[in-house]
């Protein structure tokens, strides 16, 4: 049995690093990754060692390998706890799980993420929170905050969709609680106006008029332009315990055509900016 062939004689440390940089510019992530790995293994104490590990994290991110990103980032944090760029490692951990849920399917086709399980994005909330607690003044802090805000908006809007379903289903306690959950947990998100509307309608349907009126005042006070408010300040209830009107077409076709179904509350255009892409790692040695 022949022994394994020896690795190619290492070129110098600087050449390996330059080669990796060039490949990264040409976004040949796989070759860049192998170069950076061999650089780290053979020149563990070289001048480029730490920078190579940072570049490796970025290369794995761009090659879409989320697990390796967090594994490499964890290793960097463990080896160099006081490194000046260690906040980048925390940030990349958050970022990789943020985009992990987004397969090709979601990026290409317009999918409404607020109606689905955000998947790994939920963990990126804690990674970003960790970054903000440890390095409040890191250069990534503002971007992390914006992403966290985006995710919290996502989760808050999700609650409103569920509330709309439970109104359709006739489970008014469930709907009202979903509204309250938004007020208690996502109070600064643009879903709050709809949450208030949900509670106004929920209490009404639970025939607790005084609570419903209380909620209506808060809504009118904070969001006078909410579409569910009529001009005279009363609330335009989409569901009511008595009979709604139905078009004659849906009457004769047993409701099979033109079924009149209330649209539910969705004032995203009014209150909710979007946020998407991701920055490069810090340059400089």
């Amino acid at each position, binding site marked *: 049995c022949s022994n394994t062939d020896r690795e190619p004689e290492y070129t110098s440390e600087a050449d390996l690093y330059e080669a990796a940089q060039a490949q990264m510019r040409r976004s040949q992530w796989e070759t860049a990754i192998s170069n950076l790995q061999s650089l780290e293994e053979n020149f563990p104490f070289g001048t480029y060692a730490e920078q190579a590990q940072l570049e490796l994290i970025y290369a794995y991110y761009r090659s879409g390998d989320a697990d390796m990103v967090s594994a490499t980032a964890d290793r960097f944090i463990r080896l160099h*706890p006081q490194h000046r760029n260690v906040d980048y490692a925390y940030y990349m951990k958050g970022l990789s799980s943020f985009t992990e849920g987004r*397969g090709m399917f979601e990026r290409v086709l317009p*999918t409404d993420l607020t109606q*689905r*399980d955000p*998947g790994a994005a939920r963990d990126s909330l804690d990674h970003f929170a960790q970054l903000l607690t440890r390095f409040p003044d890191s250069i990534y802090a503002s971007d992390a905050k914006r992403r966290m805000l985006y995710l919290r908006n996502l989760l808050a809007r999700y609650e409103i969709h569920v509330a709309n379903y439970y109104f*359709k289903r006739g489970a008014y306690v469930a709907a009202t609680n*979903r509204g309250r959950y938004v007020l208690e947990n996502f109070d600064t998100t643009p879903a709050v106006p709809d949450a208030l509307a949900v509670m106004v309608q929920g209490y009404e349907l639970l025939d607790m008029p005084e609570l419903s009126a209380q909620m209506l005042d808060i809504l009118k006070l904070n969001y006078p332009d909410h579409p569910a408010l009529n001009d005279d300040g009363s609330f335009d209830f989409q569901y009511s315990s008595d009979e709604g009107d139905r078009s004659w077409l849906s009457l004769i076709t047993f409701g*099979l055509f033109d079924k009149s179904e209330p649209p539910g509350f969705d004032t995203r255009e009014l209150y909710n900016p979007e946020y998407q892409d991701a920055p490069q790692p810090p340059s400089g040695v």
Partner: protein
Amino acid sequence: QSFQISDIRVEGLQRVSAGTVFSALPLRVGDQVTSEDIRMATRSLFQVGYFADVAMGRDGDVLVVKLEERPAINEITIEGNKVIKTEDLMGSLRDSDLFEGQIFQRATLEGISQALEREYIGQGRYGASVDIEVEDLPRNQVKVTVNVNEGKPARIKGINIVGNDVYSEEELLEGFELKSSGWLSWITGDDKYSREKLTGDIETLESFYLDRGYLSFRIDSTQVALSPDKSKIYITLNVSEGEIYKVSEVELAGDLKLPEPLVRRMIMLREGDDFSQILMTNSSEYITQRLGNEGYTFAEVEGIPEKNEEDKTVKVTFFVDPGQRAYVRRINFKGNTKTIDEVLRREMRQMEGGAASNSQIEHSKIRLDRLGFFKEVNVETNEVPGTSDQVDVEYTVEEQPSGSMGLQIGYAEYSGLLLSANIQQNNWFGTGKQVGFSLSNSRFRTAYNFSYNDPYFTKDGVSRGINLYYTKSDFANFGVAGYSTDTYGARLSFGYPISEIERIGFSFEARDLTVKPSASSPREIIRTPVIGEGAPYITQTELEQMREDIAMGRDFPDGYSDNRVTESVLGEPGYLDLYGNEFQDGLVGFNYVKSTLNRGMLATRGTSQRFSIEAAVPGGDLEYYKIQFQGETYKPLTRALTLKLRTNLGFVDSYGDTELPFFEHFYAGGFGSVRGFERNSLGPRSTPAERSYTVPFAWDDANGDGVISDSETSSGYLLCEDQEAFGENYDLDALKCNPGELVTQYGVRQSQLSNRNSRYDAFGGNIQVEAGAEILFPLPFIKDQRMLQSSFFVEAGNVFSTTCSERQRNCYEPDIDRLSASAGFGLTWITGFGPLTFAVARPINENEEDKAEFFQFSLGGSF
């Protein structure tokens, strides 16, 4: 003597970062330091474990820390391991934190061999041995090579139960997970010893006896013995059975929350019966579940037997503790990154904000399974922290492709450019709507089809769907199929649930269908003309040609003129001759489905029946009705094997005076019917069109050179037995002509007898009978079984016809031993492109005309 540290200098650092050293060093610049402090510092640096040697020195007031790092492991290679893969071994090494880049310590060596040996003993390979070589590398690194001798796996050679008089050894060992080596052991590996399995089996043995009333059954001792060469294991269980105990009294205690008679009805132990632990535990489980249905999610019911040794009786008391009524605060879904929340939430039978009911929570899980969108559905009920009566219910799902798509671009000389694309998605963009469209285009066939169905048009599950289709084909000159149909139409269908497991549905369809006979259309479809009594048949095209010639005044033998080409000439009429080939119809359909299958795709438990009836509305061109029944049921045989029984029955007939149209016939054979036979190849055959190839013609060798030249041919039709018309020296016998056969003006060729069209195509029938039995088993060596279903099957089926004409072959009234049957192995694999199905089968009962097909494969079948 002590001194104040003005600065700390660290030397010899290579791989470890200065930060780690400083964080481990208890001394700081500016400390007043004694030799005792220095000794303490040295010890703490040693504990870090990265350094082979730590020396503290003093250079004036500067503290000098000289470190010698231990070598780091550059590479770990493992050789000689076959049974356990290298990654698994590396994994267990990593668990005892030994991996590349780690600092190498003496203990690491011990750690490596211990970890690997534990791994092998866990696999029952007691004879395994591990030895390690360490090779130094430049730059203070080491290469660790581990060679493993896996030895022979210890196999269980004997399990002996001593002291069992009432029940035989086989009966007792049947429920065991551990078995002594049998012929199947190399697949199942059930003869590999593991302590957990043995404890599990001991419990199975105990409950076997307790379930049958042997309350004082005891396992005195168990021995696990190894043969000296460490390759054979013997297990001995010494038991004492004791006697059967009878139930003397059944009592209920605690706050029942339900009327006592209702609870008593759920207890399956009666006074005087033999005691049985399984009946006792089942009874308590039913009561617990019944309480769960009343909202007492945290109810606990426990049956306590009290033995009376003398008269061998037992008093059973059921203690019922309903606990507080629990309410569901929130229902959360995890894992549906593609499917939208409402598609899952609308399947819920448990409401948020309502009383928690175990059976509703469980039933909702099954409804999610039944959607067919998820590979796996798990449910967890967790208490809400801070409350004692609120729970959150968590459903975790794992999505799977729930549709199929395909794109075929090809070119074939007979069909020109072939382009076809089809997408069928049951969870369109995760909205739960079923959308499918397909288009295919080639020189002789274009087909478009669009189908859309919304299963939840209303919140109660009223479904509404439309289906539009258009196909156009012209096989006329190409004898591929007996006929082709152009059809276009639209179908509106809707349905709604009439119970949790039953649905009914209606459909209204308007269809315009044109049948196009082809050159080789069988005679049941269109008559084949014959010229005169006894003459051979000619094809339609040839008949058209004759009519043309008559019209152009070609000379015909006397007596033949257009009016002769009359009824008698045209042979018995086919269907199209009687009813034309254009059919506009309205179709009305009704179906009833009852399904308790546990999964939408690849079900393994439950039963499903589907009954449907479809009829052409009177007033259309056709008057037929079609009744169909499909049923399948799954029964668990053992932990791993499931029996699947399936049947498919169909009956179609006409109710008015128009006959049953042949294009509404049932076919049999191939996937979904009887595998092992060519698709749609069973059942009655059509009588092939009569075709006469001989087109002899008259030739008189005017110039006598024996060579045919144009000028010498005469035109027009000649009666083939008319020697004089052919000229004296023409040898009629060579013509092999049938008396009364007309010949045309084409050249004489070597005449071929009119041979029957050799292909007897399947024509279908109006009665379809199919049945199949399959044993579903897990494929060995494959971890993720949820996307796979493999089975051995025996299938039988055929189509029969109540209107067989005597000339049709293989056409019978329904008759059991006329069923074509086959046996074989089938595999279905759900892939992103749709279900991939393979089948390998051998016919075990064949009719003459059946065409067996050993290997069959299909991708993206509709489902």
